[in-house]
């Protein structure tokens, strides 16, 4: 097996045994990127010099008998470009931050570095994480490694494609309404969005503060557990991060599903979804039952409102979060004759159409006279959606369903129709609204050979339950071993 195809846990074992060095591993990944990224276009910014310096440092640690190396020492990873990296350009996929170099690391980036990871570069994203295909990136569209004419999903499409194309061993993404899980599903990798508050948001360029969460994209469930263990935990810089201790996630991967209660929501099998997706997910549920899980049909009756609720709350928060891009302190500035002109031309030229659409939606939803009817009402329905899960998780340990209604669509197929684009997140939005965790892992392929994602949802702080279920399924199947040919 070539070095770039290793999982994190495989590479870790072989680095520790001295089979190859961290520098060799990173060089292998950088070569792989050179070979395939012209086609995949996963990376916005590559940092080979920094990566090799980190790899050298990792080798010193690995060779030292004094220091116990961190759990990710020498592991080459990629970071979505909405996460701030000190001294490395961080664009959020936007012209307005084209030249922005943060003077600080996001907490998750600092934690990766502290664990000894090597950071290869910054991956493409829809502008400010607003989108489901990377087509809203101000720079270019990333391609799905399984079919270069198709989208990788989004907004963490660059990270998902980089993992699928073996351009890194794992990656960080962010998930506001499915932005880790949907591209994981489209690219045939594992994508895990933890519960809201499990991982610090400090340094995550905000889209919708009450929904955003940093997640991981990896080639298997074990790697997801390993990465999450490193980035999770309370951060005094993020008041919404939880003070609970972080479990040893990898230790929860027992492969044993006996007695685990699995809920299958009837609302997640809807008319119009791709039949092959439904088939694959139903088959996956059967596998879980075969492994000893108790399967229950459940109801999540407010699911149909999730999309409307999401598209009021997320844009409302975004409209305020993006107000800071005004040309005054950093990022793009287009000079004008007046202050007003500087604002309007900077923002007019700095933001793409989808970002502007959401700023306008959100501004409207918060306006005097409309607040109660839109924002406040949406928050009330959000409470009902959360209550659906509270009720469900009294009866079951995990909920299982499809990640997306269909497999990866063609580039350009939905970019002219925002509503069609929004619908690709219809099964992933609710977890963000409810603050619970959700994981997507491969569960089959459609007739075109495109991956299908199985979504495993756990309650808030129930990451272990979701990981355990996903791992048992993964052990029983071969889907995760399939790799795209590039």
């Amino acid at each position: 097996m070539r070095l770039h195809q290793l999982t994190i846990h495989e590479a870790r074992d072989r680095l520790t045994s001295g089979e190859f060095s961290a520098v060799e591993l990173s060089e292998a990944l950088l070569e792989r990127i050179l070979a395939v990224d012209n086609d995949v276009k996963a990376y916005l910014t590559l940092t080979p010099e920094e990566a090799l310096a980190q790899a050298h440092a990792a080798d010193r640690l690995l060779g030292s008998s004094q220091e116990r190396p961190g759990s990710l020492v020498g592991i080459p990873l990629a970071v979505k470009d909405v996460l701030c990296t000190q001294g490395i350009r961080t664009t959020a996929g936007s012209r307005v931050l084209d030249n922005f170099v943060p003077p600080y690391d996001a907490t998750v980036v600092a934690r990766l570095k502290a664990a000894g990871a090597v950071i290869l570069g910054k991956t493409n994203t829809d502008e400010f994480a607003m989108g489901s295909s990377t087509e809203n990136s101000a720079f270019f569209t990333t391609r799905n490694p399984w079919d270069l004419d198709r989208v990788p999903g989004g907004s963490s499409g660059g990270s998902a494609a980089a993992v699928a194309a073996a351009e890194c061993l794992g990656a960080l993404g962010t998930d506001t309404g499915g932005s880790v899980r949907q591209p994981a599903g489209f690219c045939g990798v594992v994508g895990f969005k933890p519960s809201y508050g499990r991982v610090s948001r400090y340094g995550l360029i905000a889209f919708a503060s009450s929904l955003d969460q940093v997640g991981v994209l990896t080639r298997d469930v074990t790697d997801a557990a390993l990465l999450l263990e490193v980035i999770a935990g309370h951060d005094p810089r993020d008041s919404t991060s939880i003070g609970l201790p972080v479990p040893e996630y990898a230790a929860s991967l027992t492969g044993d599903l006996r007695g685990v209660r699995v809920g299958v929501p009837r609302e997640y099998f809807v008319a119009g979804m791709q039949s092959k997706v439904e088939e694959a997910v139903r088959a996956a549920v059967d596998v879980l039952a075969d492994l000893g899980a108790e399967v229950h049909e459940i109801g999540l009756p407010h699911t149909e409102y999730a999309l409307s609720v999401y598209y009021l709350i997320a844009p409302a928060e975004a409209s305020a979060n993006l107000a800071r891009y005004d040309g005054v302190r950093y990022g793009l500035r287009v000079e004008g004759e007046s202050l007003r002109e500087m604002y309007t031309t900077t923002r007019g030229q700095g933001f793409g159409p989808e970002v502007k659409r959401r700023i306008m939606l959100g501004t409207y939803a918060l306006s005097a006279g409309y607040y109660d009817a839109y924002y406040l009402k949406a928050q009330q329905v959000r409470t009902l959606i959360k209550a659906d899960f509270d009720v469900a998780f009294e009866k079951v340990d995990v909920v299982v369903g499809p990640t997306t209604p269909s497999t990866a669509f063609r580039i350009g197929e939905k970019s002219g129709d925002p509503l069609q684009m929004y619908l690709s997140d219809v099964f992933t939005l609710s977890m963000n609204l409810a603050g619970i965790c959700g994981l997507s892992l491969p569960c089959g392929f459609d007739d075109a050979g495109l991956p299908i994602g199985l979504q495993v949802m756990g309650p808030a702080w129930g990451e272990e339950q979701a990981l355990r279920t996903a791992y048992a399924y993964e052990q029983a199947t071969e889907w995760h071993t399939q790799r795209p040919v590039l």
Partner: protein
Amino acid sequence: MIRYEPVIGLEVHAQIHTASKMFCGCPVVADTGDVPSNTAVCPVCTGMPGTLPVVNRRAVELTLLTCLALDCEVPPTARFARKSYFYPDLPKGYQISQHALPFGRDGFLEIETAAGPKRIRINNVHLEEDAGKLYHGAGGSRVDLNRAGVPLIEIVTEPDLRSVEEVRAYAAALHAVLVYLGVNGGEMERGVMRFEASVSVRPAGSDALNPRHEIKNLNSFRALADAVAYEIAAQVETLTHGGAVAQQTVGWDEARGVTYVQRSKEYAEDYRYFPEPDLPPVDVDRAWVAALRAQLPELPAARRERFTSDYGLSGYDAALLTADRAVADYYEAVVSAGGAPKAAANWITGELFRLMKETGQTIQTVHVSPQALAELIQLVETDVITLGSGKTVLAEMFAAGGSARQIVAARGLAQISDTNALEQVIARIVEENPEEVRQYLEGKEQILSWLMGQVMRATHGKANPQVVQRLLHVQLEARRQ
């Protein structure tokens, strides 16, 4: 002719005295221009992408103390909210403030008016962050974010004020409360307290609430009083001439002494408030509130009351002494060091205040320790020195410190009560001024005090006035025969 009465509400913004800013660890630096621009800043208070606020708990505690001091209801949950508007001194494009769930609501503050005490209702008390500062120059405008993120408390009244005097009394009383609580440092310089006043007028006795003018950004007590007085007069003038007052936001042109229109109602700003998602609701735990209530210091009104009952001071003196917490503390220190309460009040509100005013000092900076002043008061009360010498001693202590006894000794200021020595001086004065003595003996008794003055001058003010008066009287009466 119709008599009009003004209806005035106030929003007071006061800087909260904390070591660090509201939502980051940056130090709060004085607004004196000594600190170079944009040096007390960090990624959080400059609104860098991805940064998040963390609440300064001390600022919350001082806010809650203020709520309790103003008899506010303190709801169990408070929330921060985003107030959105674009301005170059506002780094995030929104200010973190409070809206639906402030820390306090429905309180009051009692003020003294000509007609007796009056309660001014408080609508709400909330906590927010300050913006930065803009400097406009020939080469363009500069932004300084040193102030951005400094905690501010905002106290909003109901429209209960009915005159400029009440506005002044309210502002002074509120200032005193904030200083007593340690919320505000008590400096009276510009900007530490800022005001917005909403002013309307109506026929006296009416209950109508007419369209009002909101006067923004009044940076001093003086600007507040002047702007409110101007608005009242201007609105009465308009109505008297059959005009109408439209709802407007106005600014105050201090140089010209007039208000000017900033925005009319149609262009009112929509701040699009919504709960701050980066900060969880603040759980205002009842035990926490109880602990804070126990920490409440004696407030100005209670202290004034105690000064009149315990020290026998007049209401006027008690008010003068308690207006500033530091002065009241100083006064009590003088009394507990042995200064007679009434005399101490007279010395402080008279000579000491005069010297402070002349030199621009505050009670915190004066060289006269409470012990030194108490000693001085005792020296005067026991006739060791005269009142006049006492003033000389105080002036010297004020200039250079030191103890009263040392100064009295060094300057030889102890009173002459020795009858023999004084009789000789008096005899000489009587001898030298036959015309004045004659007038006195003819019945012009006020000449006595002139003659006393001559004796005091001849003894360099050290003579005991009571002894002089008695001896002079004896010698003059002896001349009648």
